[in-house]
């Protein structure tokens, strides 16, 4: 069938037509995804950068023009107002701070919960390993929004936990769990756990069993073997998992919006409100640019961790 496509007249005509413009099949194959990503991924960031230097005004679109035609030619109107606003208003800095703090601690919690699971799955045998792995992947396929929603019913004042504890008689007053940082941590660890487990598993499953044997033959106790052999060898997996959790959590919007309280100030939520409520596009853009700058280092670490994973694969 393919042969008939390749040999068909239209196919040959198209190929000859493209070749006239110096586009070989190979060039075209490279050009299509590159152009798409250039236009819809890279250029948007340049637009964001541009608008972050504009001033908010009541117009359509609601920001000032950077280059303005005047009587004597052009005038460049770069405004640092949005950035100045970010630095002077304590709210933004506090939001960056608390986003980083929440992302940091939830990454640690996810690591503490995920590491034993990844280790156990990597050590278990054939069929079980596949089943457990499937169980880790399955939440990926279920709606993120609905999984966060499930926790509202569990944590709220007249929710399942409070109803259960009060009917047993352990507590008389319902515990306040919803709209707190506690609920946000639970939500984040819950939804991002698979992102931690999978890279850790991919790393631990390749761990050479003979190294562990050698260690125990030389008299190391299991825990010592774990600390001195397993843990250092799994560092690339840990780094990859941690960054896969940390980076998106810094900009998380849904979880703080649904589970957090009015004082849960995460930067993703601030950006959302700045855009949808205040309709201040330049400030929202400046918030995004600073967030990107904050995330450059973690993204580079992730790249490094993944290179490390790949290198250990080829070794």
């Amino acid at each position, binding site marked *: 069938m*393919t042969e008939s*496509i*390749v040999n068909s007249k239209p196919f040959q005509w198209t190929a000859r037509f493209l070749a006239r413009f110096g586009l070989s099949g*190979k060039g075209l*194959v*490279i050009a*299509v*995804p590159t152009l*798409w*990503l250039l236009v*819809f*991924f890279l250029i*948007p960031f340049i*637009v*964001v950068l541009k608008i972050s230097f504009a001033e908010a005004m009541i117009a359509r679109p609601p920001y000032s023009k950077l280059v303005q035609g005047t009587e004597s030619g052009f005038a460049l109107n770069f405004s640092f107002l949005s950035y100045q606003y970010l630095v002077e208003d304590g709210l933004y800095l506090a939001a960056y701070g608390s986003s980083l703090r929440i992302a940091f601690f939830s990454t640690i919690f996810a690591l503490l*919960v995920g590491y*034993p699971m990844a280790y*156990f799955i990597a*050590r278990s045998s054939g069929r079980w390993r*596949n089943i457990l*792995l*499937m*169980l880790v*992947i*399955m*939440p*990926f*396929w*279920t*709606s*993120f*929004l*609905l*999984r966060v*929603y*499930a*926790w*509202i*019913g*569990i944590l709220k004042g*007249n*929710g399942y936990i409070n109803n259960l504890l009060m009917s047993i008689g352990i507590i008389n007053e319902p515990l306040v769990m919803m709209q707190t940082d506690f609920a946000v941590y639970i939500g984040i660890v*819950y939804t991002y*756990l698979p992102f931690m487990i999978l890279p850790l598993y991919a790393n631990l499953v390749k761990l050479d069993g003979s190294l562990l044997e050698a260690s125990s033959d030389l008299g190391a106790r*299991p825990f010592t073997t*774990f600390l001195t052999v397993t843990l250092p060898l799994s560092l690339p997996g840990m780094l990859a998992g941690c960054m896969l959790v940390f*980076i*998106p959590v*810094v*900009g998380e919007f*849904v979880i703080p*919006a*649904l589970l957090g309280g009015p004082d849960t100030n995460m930067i*993703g939520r601030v*950006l*959302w409100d700045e855009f949808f409520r205040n309709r201040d596009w330049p400030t929202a853009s400046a918030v*995004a640019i600073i*967030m990107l700058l904050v*995330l450059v280092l973690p*993204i580079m670490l992730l790249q490094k961790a993944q290179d490390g994973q790949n290198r250990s694969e080829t070794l």
Partner: protein
Amino acid sequence: MTKRFRFLPIATFLGFAFLYIPIIVLVVFSFNKSKLVTVWGGFSTHWYGELLQDPQILGAAWISLRIAFISASLALVLGTLAAFVLTRLGRFWFKPMLSGMTAAPLVMPEVITGLSLLLLFVAMESMFGWPAGRGFTTIVIAHTTFCLAYVAVVVQSRLSDIDESIEEAARDLGAKPVRVFFDITLPTIAPALMSGWLLSFTLSLDDLVIASFVSGPGASTLPMVIFSKVRLGVSPEINALASLMIGVVALGVGLAAWQLLKSPRTKPVE
């Protein structure tokens, strides 16, 4: 030795309990008769009936399904091309950039992706007059872009796993590159294409943040409707909807698992 091996299964069990108890509770209480979601009032499928008569949810679901289908299909083509370019076509000067651009949408916070695409669409509209307004088309473009990255990752790992010597043999026997791709590469990576498409479909169906930014009047997706309802509190109708969606996924994953366990020689595709 024994001590550690007792700790591990317990920790793993608790971890899985943490992952699955909320989902199980959600499904069980979707069959609750009472309007109070958290108090059991007897078994009933009442809320499923309500759900199927809610025009707002049904309309949004239809929009979301169409967007997901088109985005997943576009992302499959573009993502496979990107993966092929990165694994099979050797070096070219902007390869590191392309590799970075295909991987970055995976970790980029959604608020940034959403905001940047919206600002692009607005700028494009004032410059070229396209896209005129925002809605269905702009959501499809946005979803295609981030789903493309997922397809590329899945296909890339499959492409670097398979034996290149068969492709070489075909080339040596005189097959043109296009023919090698369609007759040999494509059938070999078919399972990865399937899971890439399905993953994209699910991600598109689930996206709230990016769609909210690039959507316009008249194009409210299912997550947008769910979010606005959920903000007002828990509702048994949403529980029913969630259970339906989870049921479909469980069925799909169950079938895949059954296939996998039936033929233990094939490698699991993630």
